[in-house]
């Protein structure tokens, strides 16, 4: 009798193990099949979620089957799971918060897999959006895991949402320069650069009178993939164009002013043949 019982238990365990093994295989095959069928039809982000839902859904089904084979009463188990989930919920508030945040992110879709996003100081490519966290690959090839709760609470910038981007360049020119001419030179630089979009047209903003220069903003539009090329080439071309046109890019100036009461400091330049330096500054007789 005991032998028969132990044999029945072994058979049940074997069946349960078989169900789990088959379940793993079926879940893997079906989820991969799903990816193959829907690859061209839906977004990578949605596809990833659908794949995971199908995989874990099938695993749960086969797991439940395996438990039944082992003789567990599922009603009791579900009841126990309900009680346990409350206890686990209290114990794992952070995880639950991340899970709920993940669901919100899922419906809101502020970004998807493959997008470039910026959260705080972290900039990187989204490689997966999961229920608890979002995984990024930064441009220096680091793996960053950001909890979904953080994403919900903080400001997220998606750099690849729209096909074109504006490149804002700050340019300072000397006070003596003719602003209309500077504007013409900048427009010509944008027109010559093949990466700059003709439309939307470049933007020219007079920012104000700075300490040492007249501050201008010159903004050009570019295809998002060309953003860095534009940023580099346009600034280089502006420098070359300004040099060719004799437009001065000033550096900070300091003017010494001794006040209206004090006499100006007398400065005299004289050539010294013996010295290797071309000029010597001599102090005045008052010193």
């Amino acid at each position, binding site marked *: 009798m005991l032998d028969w019982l132990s044999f029945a238990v072994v058979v049940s365990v074997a069946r349960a193990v078989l169900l789990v093994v088959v379940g793993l295989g079926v879940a893997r095959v079906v989820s991969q099949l799903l990816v193959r069928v829907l690859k061209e039809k839906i977004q990578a982000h949605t596809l990833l979620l659908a794949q995971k839902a199908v995989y874990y859904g099938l695993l749960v089904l086969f797991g439940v089957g395996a438990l039944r084979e082992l003789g567990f009463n599922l009603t009791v188990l579900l009841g126990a799971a309900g009680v346990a989930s409350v206890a686990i919920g209290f114990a794992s508030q952070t995880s639950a918060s991340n899970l709920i945040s993940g669901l919100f992110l899922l419906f809101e879709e502020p970004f998807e897999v493959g997008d470039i996003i910026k959260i705080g100081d972290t900039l990187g490519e989204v490689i997966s959006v999961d229920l608890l966290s979002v995984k990024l690959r930064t441009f220096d090839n680091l793996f960053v895991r950001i909890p979904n709760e953080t994403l919900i609470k903080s400001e997220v910038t998606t750099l690849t949402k729209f096909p074109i981007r504006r490149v804002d360049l700050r340019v300072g020119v000397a006070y003596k320069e003719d602003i209309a001419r500077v504007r013409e030179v900048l427009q010509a630089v944008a027109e010559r650069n093949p990466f700059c979009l*003709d439309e939307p047209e470049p933007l020219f903003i007079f920012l104000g009178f700075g300490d040492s220069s007249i501050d201008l903003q010159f903004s050009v539009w570019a295809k998002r993939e060309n953003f860095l090329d534009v940023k580099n080439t346009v600034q280089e071309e502006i420098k070359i164009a300004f040099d060719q046109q004799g437009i001065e890019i000033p550096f900070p100036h300091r003017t010494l002013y001794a006040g209206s009461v004090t006499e100006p400091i007398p400065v005299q330049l004289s050539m010294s043949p013996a010295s290797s330096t071309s000029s010597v500054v001599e102090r005045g007789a008052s010193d």
Partner: protein
Amino acid sequence: MRGVVFMMRLQDDGKTTQLVSVGRDVPAVKWWGDVKLALGETLQKTLGEVGFYVQRQEREWLISRWMETDLCVDRKSTREKNAAKREDVRFVISSADTTLSLSPALADRSVVSRPVVPVTLLPRASGDFYVSTPLWISITSGTRKIKLMDFPTIRPSDTWFGPNTRMGELCYMSRTDAFASLDCLPVQADRVITPVRIINESNESLNVSHIKLAVPHLSVFSDTKMRLWTERAVLVNKGDTSLFEFRVDKTEHLTDACERLSEPRVPLRRNRLTQTWSFLIGSS
């Protein structure tokens, strides 16, 4: 340099067997077609702003191209500097592939043309215009015409065409005179002419400030004068200025003597017409 064709064929010993130049105001020359190259033989061409040569090497094609405007002519180390600006590509082929084909093609994106002088179509009026767009060169190998590469004859400028910066399409920009008469159109070997008919069926004037031509849907033909053409693009404004009906017609210029040189890059599907051409004309 734009609009000028130089054709040159170099042999092993460096001898030039062909040299032809074509300017804007002289008839165009046929530069497309099949060319058989012996081992070590080089075919060199300059078309518009682009120069390139193709050399048959042991089981491979070496293609080198450059922008003529980038080349230095007044410096001592010209050769080294110019070599740096050349883009070389090698294609491994079977030994039987000795034939190379050159053919004209159209841009891989839509081209937005901005008439130099804006045009206004009065209510119930229609107008015929000739718009030219930049030419691309397509190079294929062997009798099966396996595509090696294609590239533009000018450095095209990008532009955005759409109602705002979120919705729209990335296109190439081209300035055009939008001539109403073909006689006014200069012969330009590096441009393809598209006859455009705009029909304004609405009761309001239509200000045509931009014309977006979805050239990937058009074919290239050559006429007896070796000018390059596409089919006619007919655009009908039914009243809503943001929505145009579009169809492709054969024109009277495409006679039986005309030869079809290249197929559309993207075959036009009827159900995509409205969407593709919905912002065809920008009204200002």
